[in-house]
């Protein structure tokens, strides 16, 4: 491939620091905003991880007193809120921002200034949330950090049961970042629908932009209900309204409905981009095209629609009637079908390939195993009577961490390693990458495999301590031990990133011999991405160029 004329990030011509910072702060370039989203999310990943570690140390044995109940309750609230809204969403928006324009052969997102605005809204929201630690009783008392759980169920959030401002920090920070999320989503939709390069019909678009398109549609339709519910909560708390005021005839259940109408599609918002990463990485490292592209697209759209109809499976225990419960069992089971189809398609992509186990592929294969298990425990939870036992227990925590960590985070790590050479111009250290994988894999399984068991033995969630003699002790110990392996893995990862940024070998434009348009640009890409507008004829334009005797467009 042509050598890059662009210097990698670490060798920028020495501008004064103030000027460089100013460039970053005022940028509207999708690549820089993408990197800022990702860096922001990494920082908050570490903070959220510390919050989790504090909880796990508290729970390492019964009747422990590492932290008080007040602090513990703030920890689980902040951990959940941080990880969902200020780690997972920003990092996925960051990758979408970076990759979607490059993959569809265009210069930037549809609305660059809206893009920047959205990033800063999200960033500010996170700052507002963390500012809550400083209010109130000061740092050890964990100040005024919200302690109502990341779902903030009514009427616990009413002024009667949550005096002070902790709930308000939760509400307002998410309102603000929600505006940012909707902005990014509108941007992604407009970019994908309007800015594809000539020849790239929607049927010839790579799967990652497809997944991000459906994700963006879900964000637009489903983050707004949370915004609406939070506005109602603000009316209750500040203007004396009664939306969720049960003493005045208001309904606590309607908060649950509104929240989960957001909350369930939210997890598909998180997982669809992860599917996108896997759909790009697995083919390249198996050296085969993705198996069944049309049905992958169809299944994704199906998941998007069905995901908006399953929300009350989070509410099987609130006393809906048998018909209501039955309906949500049906839709929840139904969504397993398109999701399962995708797993089979990835499996079929690997089948008959020549798999190279570089770090990105290791993480993606682990994703496949783990997402399979997560999906199956999801089916168990979807059987409502079984959920009447398991809801609100550590089984559920194990299930969704299996999805989010075992699925989404593993796919994210794969994506980090895969696109790091493109973003930075340098190659990461492969041995350290594999070490990260091994440490994190061990830690993940120690923690989240064994976490299912206390749930099956009756341990509810959100408890700052537990009684001895319930058979939970040894499992909690093992779960906590796993945390330290995961932390070690993340430290190796960050070390690898930083070291490689400074001293990694030059990567070139296309270190993986891949097939989508971003690999035709320099590493990192020029500000304008493509010197001239690409024209494509198939889903893998670089394959067509590299294999002119056997191009994709003859078979698609």
């Amino acid at each position, binding site marked *: 491939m042509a050598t890059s004329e662009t210097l990698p990030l670490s060798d920028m011509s020495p501008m004064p620091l103030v000027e460089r910072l100013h460039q970053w702060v005022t940028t509207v370039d999708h690549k820089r905003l993408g990197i800022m989203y990702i860096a922001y999310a990494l920082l908050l990943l570490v903070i959220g991880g510390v919050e989790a570690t504090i909880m796990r140390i508290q729970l390492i044995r019964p009747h422990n007193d590492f932290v008080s109940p007040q602090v513990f309750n703030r920890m689980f609230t902040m951990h959940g809120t941080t990880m969902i809204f200020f780690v997972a969403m920003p990092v996925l928006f960051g990758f979408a921002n970076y990759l979607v324009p490059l993959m569809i052969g265009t210069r930037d997102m549809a609305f660059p200034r809206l893009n920047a605005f959205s990033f800063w809204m999200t960033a500010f929201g996170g700052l507002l949330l963390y500012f809550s630690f400083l209010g109130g009783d000061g740092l050890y008392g964990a100040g005024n950090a919200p302690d109502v759980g990341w779902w903030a169920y009514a009427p616990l959030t009413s002024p009667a049961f949550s005096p002070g401002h902790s709930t308000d920090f939760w509400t307002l920070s998410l309102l603000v970042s929600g505006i940012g999320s909707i902005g990014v989503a509108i941007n992604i939709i407009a970019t994908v629908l309007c800015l594809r390069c000539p020849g790239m019909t929607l049927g010839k678009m790579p799967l990652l932009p497809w997944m991000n398109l459906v994700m963006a549609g879900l964000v637009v339709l489903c983050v707004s209900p949370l915004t609406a519910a939070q506005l109602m909560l603000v009316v209750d708390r500040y203007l004396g309204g009664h939306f969720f005021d049960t003493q005045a005839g208001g309904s606590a*259940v309607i908060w649950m409905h509104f929240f989960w109408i957001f909350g369930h599609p939210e997890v598909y918002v998180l997982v669809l981009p992860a599917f996108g990463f896997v759909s790009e990485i697995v083919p390249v490292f198996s050296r085969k095209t993705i198996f069944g592209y049309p049905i992958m697209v169809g299944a994704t759209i199906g998941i998007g629609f069905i995901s908006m109809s399953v929300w009350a499976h989070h509410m099987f225990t609130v006393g809906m009637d048998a018909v209501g419960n039955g309906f949500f069992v049906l839709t929840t089971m139904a969504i397993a079908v398109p999701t399962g189809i995708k797993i089979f398609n990835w499996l079929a992509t690997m089948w008959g390939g*020549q798999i190279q186990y570089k770090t990105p592929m290791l993480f993606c294969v682990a994703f496949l195993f783990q997402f399979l298990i997560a999906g199956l425990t999801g089916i168990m939870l979807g059987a409502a009577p079984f959920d009447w036992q398991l809801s609100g227990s550590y089984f559920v925590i194990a299930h969704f961490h299996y999805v989010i960590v075992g699925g989404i985070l593993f796919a994210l790590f794969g994506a980090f390693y895969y696109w790091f050479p493109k973003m930075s111009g340098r190659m990461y250290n492969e041995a350290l990458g594999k070490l990260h994988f091994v440490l994190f894999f061990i830690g993940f399984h120690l923690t989240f495999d064994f976490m299912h068991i206390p749930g099956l033995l009756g341990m509810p969630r959100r408890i700052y301590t537990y009684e001895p003699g319930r058979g939970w002790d040894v499992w909690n110990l093992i779960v906590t031990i796993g945390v330290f392996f995961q932390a070690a893995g993340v430290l190796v990862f960050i070390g690898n990133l930083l070291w490689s940024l400074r001293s990694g070998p030059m990567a070139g434009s296309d270190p993986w011999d891949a097939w989508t348009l971003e690999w035709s640009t320099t590493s990192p890409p020029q500000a304008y991405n493509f010197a001239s507008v690409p024209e494509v004829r198939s889903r893998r334009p670089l394959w067509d160029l590299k294999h002119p005797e056997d191009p994709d467009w003859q078979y698609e």
Partner: protein
Amino acid sequence: MIIQSIRNPQVAMIETRPEEYRVEEDTILDVRVLVGRPLHTRLLRALVPFCGAAFTALAQPAAPLSPTNIFAPVSTPAKWILDLSILVLIVTGAIFTLVFGLLVYAAVKFRKRRVSEACEPAQVYGSTQLELAWTVVPILIVVVLFLTAARVIASIQGARPAGDAIEVTVIGHQFWWEYRYPSQKVVTANELHIPVSDAAHRTPTILHLLSADTDHSFWVPRLAGKTDLIPNHPNTMWVEPHETGLYLGQCAQYCGTQHAKMLLRVYVQTRAEFDRWIQRQSQPAQPAGTVSEGQRTFERTSCINCHTVSGTAADGTFGPDLTHLMSRDTIGSGIAANTPENLRRWIRDPSVFKPGCKMPAMGLSDPEVNAVTQYLETLR
């Protein structure tokens, strides 16, 4: 696991094989605890529920790993749930084995060989038959699972109260449980007594679930799945235990600071024992000859604003009814044994046991605390 109350040794046990256990005193609960098997056996047995269907072969329903094991039901709804869950575990286990096996096979077999093939492998774009197969088969599985689940939902939610059902109103508070037996005119707190049901003469217990403040959830795994207590949204659930004993659980919906210590204790008794208990609970407090020092303190300070002692001036409803406090094994909703020392410590400062609970330290002097404790000790 056996918990044997020192105070009331006749309270029924969970059956186990005693020779495999060692005896420990639990200092908080003042109970004799027969602690479970050696670690390696526990680990082995614990891996079993993790392995789906294998569990049912190995587990013995009378020897749970835990007093709150969902796989050791003693009551009808919990048993129906277990049956459904076994089917679900078998199905998902089979799917797991198949797909996991294929994944492992693919991951190993199709690795790139040392002898680097210069050309790429065959590019396969799709296969209609295969894709159809792996769409149709999951749909069929989904239909079967849905129908089975729907049937269990209908059975549990549509059950008509059989025979002489006992009705209890459960009111969730931050952070304790109020129990009212409307027909029997009994009000008590934190320890629920219900009769055992036998097939010949069924006596299930129907629980009407209300809340006085935030959301709670009633979860005693061996008796039934959980149902939430939501203010302004009454719910109903039922249990039908077939074995006497003490069954444990705790609140399963985050309700505030002390959610973790809102424990549940359900005493399933023979009909005779239950009737005796009801009889005693429906009496007002036995009037002592003279009003004791402690009772005067109790009535003079704000105790009576929150607590009821029937037959006296105390008629507060914010806190638990104390009329028959001494008939309970524990205080603080299950977190401490009901001993004079614990009572003293509780009254002096409840946050020693439950920081953040709604009862404040009343600022009583030591003699006052002793007097009140002595008075409470008369509330049998």
